[in-house]
């Protein structure tokens, strides 16, 4: 696609429910990144994919968080048993995968856990 597409754009969920966030990167971009941004804060790294593999999962806050990427394209970030502290904007970005390229971000998913 022309840009990075994320869905849904907004999600309100009840505490304890599971949620899935989707990211569709730019076609041909091999690297895909997930970040979390709380209101007025910086970018918190969660995980990145090179192709379908995730060399670095160190940013995932807990074992309630998981992510996968299939076909070197679409990625899904799953949060199980959501907690109120999970409320944030979840941003996905992609890049051509080699060093020295800028990231293209999607518009994000605003997650609110009530």
């Amino acid at each position: 696609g022309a840009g990075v597409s994320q869905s849904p754009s907004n999600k309100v969920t009840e505490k304890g429910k599971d949620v899935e966030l989707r990211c569709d990167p730019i076609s041909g971009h091999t690297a895909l990144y997930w970040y979390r941004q709380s209101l007025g804060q910086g970018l918190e790294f969660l995980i990145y994919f090179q192709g379908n593999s995730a060399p670095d999962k160190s940013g995932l806050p807990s074992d309630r968080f998981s992510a996968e990427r299939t076909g070197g394209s679409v990625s899904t970030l799953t949060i199980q048993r959501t907690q109120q502290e999970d409320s944030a904007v979840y941003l996905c970005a992609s890049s051509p995968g080699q060093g020295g390229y800028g990231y293209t971000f999607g518009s994000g998913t605003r997650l609110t856990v009530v």
Partner: protein
Amino acid sequence: GQQVMQIPQYQHVQEGEDFTTYCNSSTTLSNIQWYKQRPGGHPVFLIQLVKSGEVKKQKRLTFQFGEAKKNSSLHITATQTTDVGTYFCAEPAMDSNYQLIWGAGTKLIIKP
């Protein structure tokens, strides 16, 4: 571990005044990138600097890369309301070809 320090955290200016944000790295960099995030928006890539001492301009924005390739700055001349947002620098992670280490961002606020 590798860190990038970005200052200031906030800068309040009158419209028409200048704005500058600075980034300092703990390591010598191959490149540094700058992004802008408008309020309610997502980060947007502005530019990448690669060469020692490099200076690049985009209209009223001037980006500099230090001679030692350990620091960088973004200067905006005569700020306008369209400049409002948070400006982030980002540097390549030393232990990965694919990851960036992000500064905390500088928020540009224009006084009413």
